[in-house]
């Protein structure tokens, strides 16, 4: 995989790279997609463009594991049922069936590529329990599963000569002509050069948008870029109101403490040392972990239980908000070092606390977007030539609440599917024509205009970003009301207005991270508006979307996906699409029984 050397467009003053398939984002989904393209047809010119070196992508931070049926007492149907009930029946069941069916082979493929999966004494792959799963089916590499998966994929990618990379290039818009996506415009971060990169098919694998929230586990790079790119190009965003709060983040930093702490037997305790989940219809406390019960309940229910506990005054007070305790002391040093070494390292390095001897302070933290770019089961969006996979996409298998350890598997299964589908599509298409290059020039002028604005203008990036994050936190958090969402929608409109006047200190073309921050803020504001508008438009409570003014699930009116499209005035417009039900009619979510 060498430096990118596409064919230049000689008649054009702007340099142009050209590929058959362009993958935007070099995390787990992007790399898996790129390999799938290369393996589908080695003659295709495939490239990965990423704003960071691929091994910096946020897949690296995933800890607990990746689900795929492997044990004799398990079945694909059981994995499908857990996923569908965990998602409060908003998952498309045809997608879930494909997902659980293809998961074991994808995981095995990663084993062949060298992923250091934790093993049983006989050398077979080990699995651990996980929240909301009725059987042990979560493959893991200690508690650094995402890190090992990403590095395995990245290093394996290096062997494919056909895969080119544009590392540290930032995509600013999609190029679309005649109803077909034909490439992107991107800034080479090191030089500030704005360039068109044409392609017969584009796959967005840019991850989520946790950074629209103030308190999040998500890395700085997770600013919803791909979601906003698709949205601006006319591809709708699906189910954006469904935001997962992970129940166990470290206060202040938002560093994730993996669910694997609980699958290994950790307890959540309130200020009285009481396992409070027993009060929230999640089962009875047992000394050993019980599947689909108590601390192994689904994330939405656990995060909601925290808020209820807080309202009863039974949480603890800290400088960075209320918290509860995660206690893993009883697991013992040996098990912690073997199966949860990263948790111990994170606690020791970042909060100067040893979980072998002390309880870990935790609170719910914005973690994952169930929603994303609307795709079909092959990763195709409604815009021809545009595909999406991973957290930025919504197929949807996760419905209203994702189960822990389904997302790492999802990016393999649907990364590969999108890669194969994009490869097939690209083989039938002509080279992009001159109209897209004219659009690229418009985009170049837009970027130059931002850089030329006089410094010291009325608006700076950071205060706008913080105000957006506060707005989302207050309106679109664990519990929501119509009134607060309405107010938030208005505030976001104002922030969009103010963003148009934002000015930069930095005019340099060399590694201008302030320019990137401005472009990212623009993306986040668009995505934030779709989250709030979709939440406002859904007067029911389902999974992670809890409206205190509409506390019941409403299957009669809302067993459907929301689709947010950008209207002429730039604000989102919400429509609905029915959920695909195959074999599991909507039922009650039962845990702890």
């Amino acid at each position, binding site marked *: 995989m060498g430096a990118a050397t596409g064919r230049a467009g000689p008649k054009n003053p702007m340099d142009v790279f050209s590929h058959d398939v362009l993958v935007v984002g070099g995390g787990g989904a992007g790399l898996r997609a790129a390999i799938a393209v290369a393996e589908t047809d080695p003659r295709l010119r495939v490239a990965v463009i990423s704003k960071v*070196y691929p091994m*910096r992508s946020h897949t690296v931070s995933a800890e607990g594991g990746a689900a795929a049926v492997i044990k004799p007492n398990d079945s694909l149907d059981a994995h499908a049922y857990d996923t569908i009930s965990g998602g409060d029946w908003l998952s498309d069941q045809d997608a879930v069936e494909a997902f659980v069916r293809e998961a074991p082979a994808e995981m*095995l493929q990663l084993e062949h590529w060298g992923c250091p999966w934790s093993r049983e*004494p006989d050398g077979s792959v080990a699995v651990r329990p996980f929240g909301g799963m009725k059987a042990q089916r979560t493959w893991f590499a200690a508690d650094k599963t995402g890190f090992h998966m990403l590095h395995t994929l990245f290093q394996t990618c290096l062997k494919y000569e056909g895969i080119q990379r544009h590392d540290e290039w930032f995509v600013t818009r999609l190029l679309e002509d005649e109803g077909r996506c034909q490439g992107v415009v991107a800034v080479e971060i090191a030089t500030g050069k704005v360039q068109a990169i044409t392609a017969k098919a584009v796959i967005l694998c840019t991850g989520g948008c946790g950074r629209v929230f103030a308190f999040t586990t998500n890395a700085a790079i997770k600013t919803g870029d791909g979601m906003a790119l698709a949205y601006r190009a006319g591809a709708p965003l699906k189910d954006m109101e469904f935001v997962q709060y992970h129940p166990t983040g470290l206060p202040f930093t938002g560093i994730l403490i993996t669910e694997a702490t609980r699958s290994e037997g950790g307890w959540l305790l309130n200020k009285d040392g009481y396992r409070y989940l027993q009060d929230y219809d999640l089962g009875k406390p047992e000394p050993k972990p019980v599947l689909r019960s108590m601390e192994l309940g689904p994330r939405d229910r656990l995060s909601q239980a925290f808020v209820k506990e807080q309202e009863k005054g039974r949480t603890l007070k800290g400088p960075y908000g209320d918290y509860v305790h995660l206690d893993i002391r009883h697991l013992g040093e040996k098990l912690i070092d073997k199966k949860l070494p990263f948790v111990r390292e994170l606690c020791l390095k970042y909060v100067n606390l040893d979980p072998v001897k002390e309880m870990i302070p935790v609170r719910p933290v914005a973690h994952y977007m169930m929603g994303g770019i609307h795709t079909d089961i092959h990763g195709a969006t409604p815009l021809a030539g545009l595909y999406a996979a991973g957290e930025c996409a919504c197929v949807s298998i996760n419905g209203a609440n994702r189960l822990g350890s389904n997302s790492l598997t999802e990016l393999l299964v649907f990364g590969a599917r999108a890669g194969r589908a994009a490869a097939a599509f690209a083989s039938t298409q002509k080279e992009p024509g001159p109209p897209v290059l004219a659009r690229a020039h418009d985009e170049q002028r837009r970027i130059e205009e931002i850089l030329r604005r006089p410094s010291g203008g009325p608006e700076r*990036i950071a205060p706008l970003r913080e105000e957006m994050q506060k707005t989302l936190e207050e309106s679109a958090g664990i519990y929501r009301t119509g009134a607060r969402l309405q107010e938030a929608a208005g505030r976001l409109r104002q922030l969009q207005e103010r963003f148009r006047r934002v000015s930069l200190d930095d005019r340099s073309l060399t590694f201008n991270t302030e320019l990137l921050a401005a472009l990212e803020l623009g993306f986040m504001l668009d995505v934030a508006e779709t989250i709030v508008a979709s939440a406002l438009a859904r007067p029911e409570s389902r999974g992670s979307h809890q409206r205190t003014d509409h506390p019941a699930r409403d299957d009669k009116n809302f067993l459907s996906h929301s689709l947010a499209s950008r209207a002429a005035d730039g604000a989102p417009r919400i429509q609905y699409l029915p959920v695909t039900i195959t074999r599991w009619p909507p039922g009650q979510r039962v845990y702890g029984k």
Partner: protein
Amino acid sequence: MADTVTLAVTRYRPEQDAEPTVQTYEVPYRKDWVVLDALNYIKDRVDGTLSYRWSCRMGVCGSCGMMVNGEAKLTCATFLSHYKREPIRVEPLSYFPIIRDLVVDITDFLTKLKKVKPWIVREKEKPLAEGPSTLRPGSGQALLGTGEYRQTPEQLELYKQFSMCINCMLCYAACPVYGLEPSFLGPAVLALAQRYNHDSRDQAATERLERCSEHDGIWQCTFVGECSKVCPKNVDPAGAIQQYKLAGAVHWFQSLLLPWGTK
């Protein structure tokens, strides 16, 4: 320390600076702030022109390596409270070309990494369709299959620590040999080569050994050991290289005495 702390930060903007300069910034001192928090404070509130890389803020993405008071550190895991004297010096990683301010060019590492084939090499692959040892995919039934490469926990242990490398480049910034001889493959690349050599699923150890025994490889290492000291993930590249030298010597000796027996 007082309520504020002074950072002395390297600035370099190639369009306007002939060479790097130092700029000082005063930032609030908070005991739970790391150096990266201070840089983010500067970027957001004081000076939007300061450039640096960061992402996960949990020590695993490998982006935020810098020299702090002369030591190679992940700035997300380096607390302000660790430093008693001001100013705290923040510089780009040593021995790499500077692109801008605290951002260095690591293309050299990526070029070298590929040279040691950091992926599993096998003459023949087991078909995936045979499934993991307890399942045949597609059937929904868990049955014994043969598609998986079994690897015992002991076999995993042989290479596990070398697989923990996050490519943060601290070991290169601490390696005096890399400073003097930029062609040196360097600690992380050699540790990652060992990661695959020791993996029971791999069959290319001899090929990698030959590559790593060339002029730019293991023999350049003078065993200073700084790489292992600065590694934030407790990888031991120095140990990997020493092991490798031993294997290299044995391989050379065997090829001399038993030229037919080493392939």
